[in-house]
């Protein structure tokens, strides 16, 4: 069997790039350690360019262990776009912590882990990618070694992620035990026979839901998210909320919509209930938050609930909606968190009340935050509206109650999003000095805002690409 290495050229290049950064960090003398942010950004842009060559170069490696279809490639592009924006948005923040190559290197490795997840065709690869990403994130979360909150978040993440991994592995091994294979494609076939459901599989599904539910921070497996989002360096929070979540959804779809598609009717209602509960809890608990990072953490839990809605029907329309929402969601999330991160760098505060009068101090930051949040709330003509439309459209027919929950809770979310806007635009700032936005941060913000607007107004080009990605997902079955 000949191996078409061009299929994994992107992963090879990413790994090489991550290692190169690590080594460079060692050789370059301490005084000269600047410019790693720019270097990383450029490298990631190069990798993004490389990924486009794979769009028409589909296939699978090693008997379906590693799948490179448009679905995987599009997700990889999402991760790379997120990583680029995070790297640009980090520069000031990391400079404040001390310019360190390891930070960027870990960022690249986390991205590599996500890529492996997106392409994973069997459980082992899936788990490898997941752990590669998680371990890189653990290091990044406690990167502010001298900050108690950051370290606490790191420890919590290690322990809870370990817990969830154990549960996930247990679930995967149960499925393996039932089917005798770890390849997702073969699992799919094994379950296509009628009456395939057994008590052991019930247990397996429960474990898989719990393990993956942890990664996407679905209620009731969400408890870690607010603490860790709050404690982590803000650019990492952004990457955690956008990239890690998108990657987890990529494998969630592979495992459930592909691997367990045969027993779909057994888990559909469970997913619908989880989605509903996640939406409700995420939005309700976001209301009383006073710290913007915690508020956004709960909002991102609610967002995970929305995305989960697309999995309920496991239909092409649902898959398409999930991919579409994951794509637009990274821009809103990273846009919002980049504002928070830069605001923290300048003022040292994450409290919502300190955002008073931001519209006067930095009109750009205030505008981006409002656009990002309104997009998350699903207000037209922003991207979030289109995304939610695609998602809920799939469940209107058979799960109307879920669509209603989504609708009502979107209204609730407008409340806490607009509270922040109100503070920024109505209140007078205590300190009126304008906040200067450095070039890379400004670019990140403008890209996030423009894309959020553009996708909302003219969704068709992205919808077409997403459609192609969703089609390829079903082609391999």
């Amino acid at each position, binding site marked *: 069997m000949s191996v078409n290495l061009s299929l994994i050229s992107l992963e090879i290049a990413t790994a090489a790039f991550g290692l190169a950064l690590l080594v460079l960090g060692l050789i370059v003398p301490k005084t000269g350690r600047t410019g790693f942010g720019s270097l990383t950004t450029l490298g990631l842009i190069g990798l993004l360019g490389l990924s486009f060559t794979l769009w028409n170069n589909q296939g699978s490696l090693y008997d379906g262990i590693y799948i490179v279809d448009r679905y995987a490639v599009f997700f990889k592009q999402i991760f790379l776009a997120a990583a680029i924006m995070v790297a640009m948005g980090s520069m000031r923040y990391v400079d404040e912590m001390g310019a360190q190559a390891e930070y960027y290197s870990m960022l690249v490795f986390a991205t590599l882990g996500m890529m492996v997840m997106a392409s994973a065709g069997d459980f082992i690869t899936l788990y490898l990618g997941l752990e590669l990403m998680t371990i890189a994130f653990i290091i990044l979360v406690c990167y502010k070694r001298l900050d108690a909150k950051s370290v606490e978040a790191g420890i919590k993440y290690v322990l*809870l992620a370990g817990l969830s991994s154990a549960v996930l592995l247990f679930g995967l091994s149960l499925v393996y035990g039932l089917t005798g294979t770890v390849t997702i494609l073969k699992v799919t076939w094994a379950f296509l026979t009628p009456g395939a459901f057994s008590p052991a599989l019930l247990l397996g599904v429960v474990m898989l*839901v719990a393990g993956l539910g942890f990664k996407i921070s679905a209620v009731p497996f969400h408890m870690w998210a607010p603490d860790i989002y709050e404690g982590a360096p803000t650019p990492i929070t952004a990457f955690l909320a956008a990239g890690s979540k998108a990657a987890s959804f990529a494998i969630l779809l592979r495992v459930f919509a592909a691997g367990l598609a045969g027993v779909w009717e057994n888990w559909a209602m469970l997913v619908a209930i989880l989605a509903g509960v996640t939406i409700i809890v995420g939005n309700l608990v976001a209301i009383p938050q006073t710290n913007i990072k915690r508020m956004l953490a709960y909002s991102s839990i609610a967002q995970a609930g929305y995305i989960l809605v697309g999995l309920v029907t496991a239909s092409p329309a649902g898959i398409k909606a999930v991919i579409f929402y994951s794509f637009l969601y990274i821009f809103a999330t990273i846009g919002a968190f980049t504002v928070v991160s830069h605001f923290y760098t300048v003022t040292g505060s994450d409290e919502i009340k300190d955002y008073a009068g931001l519209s006067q101090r930095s009109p750009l930051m205030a505008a981006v935050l409002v656009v990002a949040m309104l997009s998350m709330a699903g207000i037209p003509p922003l991207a979030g509206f289109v995304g939610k439309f695609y998602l809920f459209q799939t469940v209107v027919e058979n799960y109307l109650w879920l669509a209603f929950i989504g609708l009502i809770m979107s209204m609730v979310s407008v409340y806490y999003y607009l509270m922040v806007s109100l503070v920024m635009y109505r209140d007078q700032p205590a300190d009126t000095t304008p906040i200067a936005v450095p070039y890379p941060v400004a670019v990140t913000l403008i890209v996030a805002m423009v894309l959020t607007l553009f996708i909302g107004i003219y969704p068709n080009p992205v919808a077409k690409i997403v459609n192609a990605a969703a089609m390829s997902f079903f082609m391999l079955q």
Partner: protein
Amino acid sequence: MVEFSMTHAWLVPLLPFLAFAVIVFLTRPWKMLSALVSVGAMAAGFVISAYAAYGVFTSHSLIEKSLEYSVRWFSMPGLNIDVGVKLDPTSAMMLFMVTLVASLIQIYSIGYMRGEKGFSTFFAYMSLFGASMLLLVISSNLLEMFVAWEGVGLCSYLLIGFYNHKISAREAAKKAFVTCRIADFGLLLGMLALQIIFGTLNITELGEKIANFELYTNAATLTLVAVLVFLGPIGKSGQFPLHVWLPDAMEGPTPVSALIHAATMVVAGVYLVGRMLFMFLEVPEAQQLVAVTGAFTALFAASIALTQREIKRILAYSTISQLGYMMLALGVGSLTASMFHLWTHAFFKALMFLAAGSVLTALHHKADIWEMGGLIKKMPVTGATFAVGGLAIAGIPPFAGFWSKDEILSLTLSGGHPVLFFMAALTAFLTAFYMWRLIFLAFFGKEKPENHPQESPPVMTVPLLILAFLSLVGGLVGTPWFPFWGEWIRFGEFHHAAPDYTVMILSVILGVIGIGLAYKMYVKDVSAEQRLAERFRPVYTLLYNKYYIDEIYMWFNHTLVDGAAKAMYLFDIYVVDGIFINGIGAITRDTGSALRVFQTGRLQNYALVFFLGVLAVAVILAITGPAPAGLVWGGVR
């Protein structure tokens, strides 16, 4: 270039839009540069339009089947919306006319707006206004057209309220916007109904489907839909009873009035009805409604104009009246005559508004025509060009208005509508009279010593001269002996009607009598109006107060709307807010706070919750999944 222009007609609205963006974001601090960007974009649009029009008017196939191209805007099951271009003789004519008139008005504005605050902003808005109108013109899809339609509405709001330090300007802007919004609601409902019934909003496809509408719906429903759609044009084109905003719209700078009245805003309604004429022709009741509304509005507005004193107000009522003609023409089923009158009207009305602006500048914004007089001596160009406009609107051959108005009159008569014909003919007489009343009072007679008028600079008079020239010759493209217009811009078969000399002579006589009467009353015997007003005091007061329509609306708003609002307000405060909102809000907030208690920050608790979650998931799965439920509750197979 012709080929390029036809396939890139979307550039025509895009260029002014880009000008808008460039001015707002880049060139605002540099006034002249902003003006040049704006004028340049519009002029470039004119060049493209001219080439495209040349291309359209030389390919006969486009009369029956328009050139269409589009991109998908968004799609979902059962609903595909495209944005695209529909190029046929009608839209090509409109592109040409709008870009031409808008360019001239913008050039004129450079002189008129000199030294005003917000000079650049003014040009930005003007560009956006033009862009919206041009998009409306080339739209191939009703939703696309609606977006442009609302864009036009927005720009009119911004520009009418341009002098936003004046309360009257702010009020007028609000009035225009709200009145049009009321009408647009009807249009929106009509569009929804069209989408639901026919499954498309593409104009061409609608045309094909409505031709066999019995397959989709019955005639009664389609009539209702047509009436709903017609509500939009009633508002936008200032038809009775939603005409009230148009006279107030003169609160904006005069070039804005010219643009609104001649080329952009108000003709949008006529154009929409023209685009959808296939629907109105299918249901005779709706068609009748269009005709009657048009004829009534024409007469109604002309009668108000008889007694008004402010120069721009008279022109505003004359616009309403002329729009009535255009609607009447559509109502009797003639796209040709309607668009022809739209074309000629654009030139002579833009001309008269710009000339009025020139007068107002010279007299420091003194607007009462009774306080003017003899202006032609000091302002020969303005006076002469205004008189050309007056001759055109009065229907004196060979000026442009004669040919188009004559066509409407003879079609109304030959279409078997004697009453409507009588109304239209009477309007023609009144039009000649009130317009020349204005001209005689303002430009002839004794000079007033307190006025020190001066002719405007060439940047203002040259556009006037060009427009005067067009008002003179613009109608020659559609004379009964040279029916170029009717051959190209039409709906259905082309009929070459023999010239109807009776109507022609009648309309000339009516015009001449009107002018003559005005001459007698306002040059020979200046106190005649005074005496007539005293003799017919109630009628005069009624007309002078515009039939008290505004007051009736005001009363309606104050008693019914405000009263209902007050009742609802109390309901809102005590029932909705008190019980529902605050109640639900409190529940929501309290739930949020209660759930927050679980977030202890202690790792052990988190792990516990995690496993409780696993348990909960297992239970849910056991209850909801058909197979697991069978396993758990129904025993093992």
